[in-house]
């Protein structure tokens, strides 16, 4: 058995047994939802329905319903696309990168973080499919033989790379998530008594039995999938940044974009994981598994990625000045002092200053403060994408195309709809799926459980 240093803080609090873990994870699935769940679910569904209304209206009348105009042809839609895709990145980072680095604390959060990834990518997909204007022709994005020649999509274009990157990312994330879910579904199948639930979980668990050969393959598959997902997650946001970086628009055409976008994505994703997990641990009484230490670890990732983002902002400013290119210099001057300077300063405050507060141990171990700050970070990251896209396009090369931008009612509605959809899916997930990877958690109980660590320490003294 793997023994863990006594210096490490236990990851599972209290005197838990394997049976206790089973009971705690299955409780939200077998039990009835409380009033808070129904209130949150109703609000989310209402938001989702409003979004569907606005989305249908857009499909009906076209994207003239949006605030985008001749100069500012990318605005709210792409801001939201990049924001949602970025949020998704934390899930893969937690389940893949932390697995490769053998960070055991990932086991309490990876399941829900991966669920969050999938739901966030679905939200992002809504914006990219809609922004083409005629979403019923979106199949033309794929290299399908057709009646025009065949005329193929342009493989030199980062927009097409994005189609491939996002679809690969979405499908691989779903498969990675599901393969981890199979043993946990089997646990639920063997525990529930209601015949209908038993039938449902029996289908979902694919007949898993926990044979030693299957576990051996399971672990190999998880490791290789983690190894494949790690470069994949970096490639996806790099390619999203290529959408901007390979253009010839001042303020976009910079080589710093890929690392800057990836760290920003991890930054906002971890913030969203914190927002969700702080609620989940409270509502489903999982404080023993999602401890203050877990929250602190995630906050440390937020300091690191937040600082990388801060350095990237300053580097951009320096390089714009140092390049001597007037257009480049103007683009940044316009962001910081132009008509949309308020957005720039919201971004700077939320993303650069606020995460630095986590250097104080008292703040990064405070649940209430972390919850508030996790929302602040996501507001900041939304504004980052807005600042990159909108003020830049409002002031391009030709002053005759200079323009302003205001989102329409429909724009806001679709965004609210995706937030509603995200929370609707997450709330449904949290009542029907095992929110913590319980099989993995059981494997670290003896090494990282509080009571077991105490026993090991006592044993060492005698």
């Amino acid at each position, binding site marked *: *058995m*793997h023994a863990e240093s006594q210096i490490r803080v236990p990851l599972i609090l209290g005197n838990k*047994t394997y*049976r206790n873990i*089973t009971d705690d994870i299955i409780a939200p699935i077998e039990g009835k939802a409380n009033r808070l769940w129904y209130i949150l679910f109703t609000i989310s569904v209402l938001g989702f329905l409003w979004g569907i209304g606005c989305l249908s209206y857009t499909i009906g009348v076209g994207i003239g319903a949006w605030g985008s105009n001749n100069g500012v042809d990318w605005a709210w839609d792409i801001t939201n696309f990049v924001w949602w895709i970025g949020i998704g990145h934390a899930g893969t980072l937690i389940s893949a990168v932390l697995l490769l680095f053998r960070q055991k604390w990932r086991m309490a959060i990876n399941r829900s973080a991966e669920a969050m990834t999938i739901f966030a990518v679905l939200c992002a997909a809504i914006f990219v499919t809609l922004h083409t204007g005629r979403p019923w022709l979106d199949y033309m994005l794929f*290299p399908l033989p057709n009646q025009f*020649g*065949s*005329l*193929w999509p*342009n*493989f*030199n*274009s*980062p927009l*097409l*790379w994005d189609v*491939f*990157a996002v679809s*690969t990312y979405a*499908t*691989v994330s779903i*498969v990675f998530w599901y*393969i981890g879910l*199979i*043993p946990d579904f*089997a*646990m639920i*199948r*063997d*525990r529930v008594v209601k015949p209908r639930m038993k039938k449902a979980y*029996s*289908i979902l*668990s*694919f*007949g*898993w*039995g*926990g*044979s*030693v*050969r299957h*576990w*051996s*393959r*399971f*672990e*190999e*598959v998880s490791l*290789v*999938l983690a190894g*494949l*997902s790690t*470069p*994949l997650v970096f*490639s996806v946001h790099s390619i999203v940044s290529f959408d901007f970086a390979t253009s010839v628009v001042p303020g976009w055409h910079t080589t710093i974009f890929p690392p800057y976008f990836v760290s920003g994505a991890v930054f906002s994703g971890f913030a969203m994981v914190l927002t969700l997990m702080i609620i989940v641990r409270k509502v489903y009484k999982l404080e023993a598994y999602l401890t203050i230490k877990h929250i602190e670890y995630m906050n440390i990732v937020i300091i690191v990625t937040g600082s990388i983002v801060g350095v990237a902002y300053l580097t951009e400013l320096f390089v714009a000045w140092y390049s001597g290119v007037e257009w480049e210099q103007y683009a940044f001057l316009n962001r910081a002092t132009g008509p949309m300077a308020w957005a720039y300063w919201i971004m700077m405050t939320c993303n650069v200053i606020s995460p630095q507060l986590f250097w104080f141990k008292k703040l990064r171990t405070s649940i209430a403060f972390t919850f508030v700050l996790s929302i602040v970070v996501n507001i900041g990251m939304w504004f980052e994408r807005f600042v990159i896209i909108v003020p830049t396009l409002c002031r391009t090369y030709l002053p005759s195309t200079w323009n302003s931008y205001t989102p329409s009612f429909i724009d806001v509605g679709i965004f609210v709809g995706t937030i509603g959809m995200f929370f609707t899916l997450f709330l449904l997930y949290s009542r029907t799926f095992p929110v913590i990877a319980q*099989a*993995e958690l*059981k*494997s670290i109980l003896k090494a990282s459980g509080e009571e077991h660590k105490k026993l090991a320490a006592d044993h060492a003294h005698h």
Partner: protein
Amino acid sequence: MATKQIIHGIYSDEVPLLDACAKLRASGIRIKDVFTPFPVHGIDPVVGVPRTRIAICAFIYGITGLSLATLMMWYMMVHDWPNDIGGKPNWNYYSAIPAFIPITFESTVFCAAHGMSLTYLLRCWLVPGAKAKNPDPRTTDDKFMIYLELNEEQSKKADEILRSTGAEEVNYKGTITIEPKY
């Protein structure tokens, strides 16, 4: 024709389970299977499970994905309809290769990940509607099981080992008849 006894040895902890597996194997008894609620580290060599070759499959699928993407982009962009887009001509594959790298990479990952996952599911026969493979439902919760199929003489020896290593239960689940292979 040989008749074999099915024995379930149930444990509530992985340490005595590993001990029992080692002792069973040392006395020449073949362990048919072991069912555990979570992956027990270091169990494979004890039970005698060879290392899985599924990572090799992933590599082969990855190479396939890489080749398919290269072939597709060469055919569409260079052979079938070459275009000069934004001053970046596609008259041959190698000169335009930087633009093809992202999709080549994505396709490699796509094929490796999905091919390996499918292989895993089919090899373990994990498919929707498959019958639960664990003989005792407690093994997904907190029990560990050694599953044996033995002849009469070996059964006695196994029973002794299982009980002496602290098995909570030793259940006899009937016999199966194995037809000899010619």
